[in-house]
């Protein structure tokens, strides 16, 4: 049996031009366009021809970027807005957790608000009275229930709103990203409550950015993109496809950022080179724009360029060029280098910085006792890491080639970014290989 059936639903919103926004009754009447102004000038389809069914007793997740139409679908299912075309049918009593505590009146007590909110959500006065203690206990507000709601903290407010909505005992529960509120303990309590709902065979429609929740909880999932369905079905597969797509666009974004960095560096380089030709033949002085303290310097590129880093790329598994990597994957920084004249005094260096500007790792061939011997013409330098053991985040990279005494040939400071993704949300600046060990009397539940 289907609990929710959405067939070919389309929702078109009006988008106002500036003129329409400031139109008033007076100006509309002066222009004689009262009726015309009520018609939209420009429309915007928030949801386009979406169809899906949710079987009774299952949990259904909707994922997608901001503005993809998730909440609009939820509102249509809740009956708050109607689809412009198409049909939405829901079996049974609905409770929508769209905004918790919407409709609380700040001036009156929590107790009175519970009654009014419960009645608003479809309970009778007697039903609310019967569940009242349960609601208050769930919200953990026994002491404050007779205080006016305006004195509540936002957490208390949300908890009370959630407690009322969940105790309406709906057949269909609609949840819009409400688990983001509340502390850890309350979130767990909510999740337990959802679990109980599932066991009792209720239908849940969940809109969230928490992909883990969709994978763990949902029987089926839907991925929306600009109001259209991109994928539907098994949650693991849908979430996987969604993550891949998000990474792809992040990848494109990072690639664009790096390309821009390279471009500005090259412009700087071109300027430097024209200086260089002016003093050709003389003994090369230290370039004037070398920062005094390299670790304090901002991003940029400097150096004499006799030895030059022409290009920087990041590569992952199988030499695939990328900007997004997963914790533990192989990772290589590839430098294309060129010597304008043969050299025997050179050091390659590399530094990896996290978003806070903290150096996670830095080394160079000099530190590692590689004594330079000879280099002429073009070549490549690879700095390969077998397992990229960094926590999730965006990292910036320094690459440099300089003399043993520090004289910079070519220094690229914080110009290139890459991103590390991790399933585990651990924290810190690096991630040591580790494992947990427990004596037999300490046990954990098997993963869900």
């Amino acid at each position, binding site marked *: 049996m289907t609990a929710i059936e959405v067939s070919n639903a389309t929702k078109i*919103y*009006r988008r106002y031009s500036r003129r329409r926004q400031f139109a*008033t*009754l*007076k100006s*509309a009447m002066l222009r004689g366009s009262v009726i015309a102004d*009520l018609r939209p000038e420009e429309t915007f389809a928030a949801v386009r021809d979406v169809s899906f069914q949710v079987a009774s007793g299952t949990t259904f997740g909707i994922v997608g970027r901001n503005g993809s139409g998730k909440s609009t679908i939820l*509102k249509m299912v*809740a*009956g*708050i*807005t*109607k689809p412009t075309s198409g049909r939405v049918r829901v079996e049974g009593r*609905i409770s*929508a957790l*769209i*905004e918790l505590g*919407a*409709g609380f*009146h700040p*001036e*009156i007590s929590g107790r*009175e608000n519970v*009654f*009014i909110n419960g*009645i*608003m*959500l479809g309970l*009778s*006065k007697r039903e609310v009275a019967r569940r009242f203690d349960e609601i208050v206990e769930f919200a953990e507000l026994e002491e404050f229930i007779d205080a*006016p709601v305006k004195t509540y903290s936002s957490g208390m407010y949300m908890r009370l709103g959630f407690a009322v909505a969940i105790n309406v005992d709906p057949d269909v529960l609609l949840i819009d990203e409400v688990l983001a509120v509340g502390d850890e303990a309350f979130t767990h309590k909510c999740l337990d409550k959802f679990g109980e709902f599932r066991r009792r065979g209720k239908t849940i429609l969940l809109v969230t950015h928490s992909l883990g929740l969709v994978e763990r909880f949902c029987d089926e999932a839907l991925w929306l993109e600009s109001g259209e369905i991109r994928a539907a079905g098994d949650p693991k597969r849908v979430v996987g496809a969604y993550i891949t797509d998000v990474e792809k666009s992040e990848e494109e974004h990072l690639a664009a950022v790096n390309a821009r960095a390279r471009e500005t560096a090259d412009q700087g380089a071109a300027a430097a080179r024209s200086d260089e030709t002016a003093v050709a033949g003389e003994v090369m002085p230290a370039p004037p724009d070398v920062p005094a303290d390299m670790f304090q310097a901002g991003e940029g590129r400097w150096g004499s360029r006799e030895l030059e880093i022409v290009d920087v790329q990041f590569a992952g598994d199988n030499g695939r060029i990328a900007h997004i990597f997963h914790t533990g994957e192989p990772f290589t920084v590839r430098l294309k280098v060129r010597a304008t004249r043969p050299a025997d005094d050179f050091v390659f260096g590399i530094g990896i910085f996290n978003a806070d500007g903290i150096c996670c790792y830095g080394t160079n061939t000099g530190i590692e006792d590689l004594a330079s011997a000879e280099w002429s013409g073009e070549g490549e330098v690879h700095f390969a890491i077998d397992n990229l053991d960094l926590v999730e985040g965006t990292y910036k990279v320094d690459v440099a080639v300089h003399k043993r005494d520090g004289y910079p040939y070519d220094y690229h400071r914080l110009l290139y970014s890459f991103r590390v993704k991790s399933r585990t949300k651990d924290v810190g600046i690096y991630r040591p290989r580790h494992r947990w060990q427990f004596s037999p009397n300490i046990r954990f539940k098997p993963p869900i």
Partner: protein
Amino acid sequence: MLHNLRQLIRYRPLIQSLVARELKARYRGSVLGFFWSFFNPLLLLGIYSFVFTFVLPSRPADLEPYALFLFCGILPWTWFSSSLAESSQVLISGGNLIKKVLFPAEVLPIVTVLANMMHFVFGLPILFLFILYFKHAVLTLGELAWFPVVIIVQLILTVGLALFLSAITVHFRDVKDILGNVLTFWFFATPIIYPMDMAPPMGRALLNLNPFTHLAISYQEILFYPGPFGHWRWLLAMVVASLLLFVAGYFVFDRLRDSFAEEV
């Protein structure tokens, strides 16, 4: 539309508790609390009585006691005008409910009208005390039987107008400002501070077009003037007119209903 009206009956408990909340919340934190429902019309009455007794003291004799005459008109007018002024705002201020909770929007203007009606009802004991105080004992059962009819007609009329105003204010926010002035004008275009027969014949024809004229006259005839209730033909016509206005107001509201969640 009929379906929605029937739906509304299911929401009776909600309307009840929202009216109760409205009344409680309004005076929460004030020292006198509920007594303001009595004091507000009393103070207004004091002001008007003062002005028309000491500042402009020329009146025909059959308007004595003038304070009582005024009270018969001002009490229902306050119900009417505050209902309209508040209900024009109610969908916008209650926007969160309309956008986030499945909720029949017409509950909001109806609650506004009913809450104001409760203030009116709380004012009635004072009115009757006044009647007793002035020994203006002209109340007969035959006349008093019409009293609930007048109240019901006013309720239907006010709800109809409130639905209409609340719905169009969502689209044209300047209704609020227009309404303030219209209500002031409307007050003086209704025989509340003057009796109907003081109006010139030309003006009387125009006043007859004002629905609140007949409500005000009905209240005055029942509660102030002696003799049998003579305005009953007009009142029966008002029953029909107010029902028509209600249907029209509800029709407009129903047509604009789907736009509320997007516009407020």
